[in-house]
């Protein structure tokens, strides 16, 4: 049966199991928008194309399905670049569809023409320029397959206007992906398994480094089995939070630049690191020259190009984490590691005493308290917290205890400010039954707050907690530590966020006292519509502990002790 390229596009996307798409129309994508009337897809109109990509990303991370974002050519397409780079670095499967000027006009600098496939080469897993209707079906099928298989990532499909308009025979079955060079399904050799198992068996002081790959691969049960069976303590990356319940006795917590000091110490003292679906990002290793000097390293990773990129490893098991662990687990014996675990326990020292969550607020509103209270109020339900980038993101990671996978969505690798609100919209669309909380700084919120209109237009129940300290807080913190407290360009003059929310018809409250936090969260949970809280927290609070960039992982800047004095001496 004959169909236009535009009709084929939507039909293929539907057949891929997608129900919702995020987009913004424009000239070169108009034929596709016109054809939406024949489609069952629910289109969510965003306010900026970057928002569409983050929504698709949030949708993908909340559900594990492929997210779809749509934009027109030229500026519509270039606005998507940040979202694609974000998805690329965090291995998130999204497909971005952009309109392109007519195929005869390509290269002529036509109105709203840009070479988006050229621009996005380094920030997509793969991209396509489609100039004929009969290429649409196969391209969409390939794009979805590439986006979600192996190490997931963003795929761009740039479709010329004439390819959308012209017609051809549509045959889904015949349009099978043809990717002779693409081999996402790798698996280790038996000898490599043996080496890894021998290392695990003979290790006295092992630590598992647990990353995002565990969630992507769906290896949660296997990870837990390995942990329980081997009695191996676990340090988690930012994107790995939730892959093992925070309450699991062997879950040490987050590692790295703002990880707990004892977690980093444990890594430095370990004799074996078992890296599961993580890539030794500089934020988790600190100085590579001094990183885990006594440890042998096993790297289980689906992307062969990650092996030995940052950290030289002794055994690499390249393959799907879940499949690899299924092979490994039966050969791992239960070993008594109480000596090692006691040692780690002692490393904690007075950390709990220094921990701000256990300290009185003395009339101050600390971000850590806000987040910890939010956790206590929302821990029982199906909650997704979506964070932005900066201090609030680290406090969330420290003080919100994630028990379940896909309960934290955050921009880790690229550190994209403005990610949280749109990603939360995507998460809510993907999992409408979940309680979605945006935890965002006052700086990042203003980068994409135009999407409040999308929240209202789609009538989405999204809860927004602005951690407002009147600064670009993390940058200010670096200026405090490393630039002599020269707060260049970090103080912010902000709008009244509560009034801003009201202008959109969103219920809001400005909160300056800790006693208001719990009632506000409770009220938000009862309210059926979106809410926004402007938490005016301590302005010059600092995320502790911290590994300065380039320092050894266990060389941490600690919270001045005791904080009680600092808090009281106002």
């Amino acid at each position, binding site marked *: 049966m004959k169909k236009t390229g535009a009709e084929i596009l939507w039909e293929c996307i539907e057949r891929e199991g997608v129900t919702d798409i995020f987009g913004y129309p424009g000239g070169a994508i108009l034929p596709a928008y016109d054809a939406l009337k024949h489609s069952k897809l629910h289109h969510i109109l965003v306010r900026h194309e970057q928002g569409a990509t983050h929504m698709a990303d949030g949708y993908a991370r909340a559900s594990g399905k492929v997210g779809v974002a749509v934009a027109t050519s030229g500026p519509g397409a270039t606005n998507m670049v940040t979202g694609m780079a974000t998805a690329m670095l965090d291995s998130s499967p999204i497909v971005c569809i952009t309109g392109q000027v007519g195929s005869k006009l390509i290269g002529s600098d036509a109105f709203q023409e840009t070479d988006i*496939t*050229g621009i996005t*080469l*380094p920030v997509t*897993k*793969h991209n396509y*320029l489609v100039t004929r209707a009969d290429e649409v079906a196969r391209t969409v099928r390939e794009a979805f397959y*590439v986006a979600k298989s192996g190490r997931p990532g963003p795929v761009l499909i740039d479709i010329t206007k004439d390819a959308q308009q012209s017609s051809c025979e549509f045959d889904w079955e015949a349009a099978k992906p043809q*990717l*002779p*060079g*693409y*081999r996402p399904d*790798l698996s*280790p*050799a038996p*000898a*490599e398994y043996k*080496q890894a198992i021998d290392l695990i068996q003979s290790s006295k002081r092992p630590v598992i480094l647990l990353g995002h790959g565990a969630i992507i691969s769906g290896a949660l049960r296997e990870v837990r089995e390995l942990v329980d069976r081997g009695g191996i303590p676990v340090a988690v990356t930012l994107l790995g939070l939730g892959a093992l319940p925070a309450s699991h006795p062997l879950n040490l917590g987050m590692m790295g630049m703002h990880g707990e000091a004892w977690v980093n110490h444990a890594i430095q003292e370990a004799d074996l690191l078992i890296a599961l679906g993580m890539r030794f990002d500089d934020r988790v290793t600190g100085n590579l020259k001094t990183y885990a000097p006594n440890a042998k390293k096993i790297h289980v990773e689906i*992307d*062969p*190009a990650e*092996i*030995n*990129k940052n950290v*030289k*490893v*002794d*055994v*690499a*098991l*390249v393959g799907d984490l879940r499949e690899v662990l299924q092979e490994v687990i039966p050969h791992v014996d239960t070993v008594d590691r109480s000596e090692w675990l006691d040692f780690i326990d002692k490393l904690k020292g007075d950390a709990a005493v220094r921990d701000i969550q256990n300290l009185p607020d003395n009339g101050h509103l600390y971000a850590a308290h806000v987040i910890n209270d939010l956790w206590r109020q929302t821990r029982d339900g199906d909650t997704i917290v979506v964070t932005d980038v900066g201090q609030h993101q680290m406090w969330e990671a420290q003080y919100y205890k994630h028990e379940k996978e896909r309960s934290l969505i955050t921009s880790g690798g690229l550190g994209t400010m403005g990610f949280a609100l749109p990603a939360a919209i995507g998460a809510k669309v993907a999992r409408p039954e979940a309680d979605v909380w945006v935890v965002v700084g006052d700086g990042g919120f203003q980068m994409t707050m135009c999407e409040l209109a999308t929240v209202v237009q789609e009538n989405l129940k999204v809860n927004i907690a602005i951690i407002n300290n009147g600064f670009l807080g993390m940058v200010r913190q670096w200026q405090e530590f490393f630039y002599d407290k020269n707060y260049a360009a970090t103080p912010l003059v902000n709008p009244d966020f509560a009034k801003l929310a009201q202008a959109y018809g969103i219920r809001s409250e400005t909160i300056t006292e800790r006693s208001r936090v719990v009632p506000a969260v409770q009220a938000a949970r009862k309210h059926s519509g979106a809410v926004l809280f402007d938490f005016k927290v301590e302005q010059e609070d600092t995320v502790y502990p911290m590994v300065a960039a380039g320092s050894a992982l266990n060389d941490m800047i600690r919270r001045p002790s005791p904080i009680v004095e600092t808090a009281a001496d106002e």
Partner: protein
Amino acid sequence: MLNTFVVYVENKPGVLTRVSSLFRRRAFNIDSLTVGRTEKPEVSRMTITVDADRDQARRIEANLYKLVNVLLVENITHEPAMMRDLAMIKVAATHEARSHVLELASVFRARVVDVAPESLTIEITGAEDKIDGLLEVLRPYGVLEMVRTGIVAMRRGGKGSGASSDIPQGLAQIAPDEGVSYSV
């Protein structure tokens, strides 16, 4: 050290850009890159030489495989292979110099492909150092213009090309690192 990769790619628009963009993005410096057809019309073959240590070479290989259009990568640096570069060298050759230049060309088994009153153009094929050698001895006469194709390489012996073998079936083995082993 200089590594030589033979890379089989799908013969599609934009694939050369993807490959060269990868080297730029990962900050590897291409010494020479040639691309051309193979015995299969749907497969193109690149010869890429790049300065890299062993570990970098392995990562280049792994990163090339991440490109969806890359079919097969062979690092033939440590294998017996034929390496050829082709150069055309236009030399200033006045009447007196002409016979000397012709003599040098014949010593290097190069061919004269164009003769003009003031110049000779010599075509030479061979390994890079042979061409460098000819260039060296011609320089005193005045090299007016020169062009080189960059290296093309082929493994010696009976084994067929990656383009004709059944590429999707054979999982390629990335050169293992010392102390690390895994297959790809």
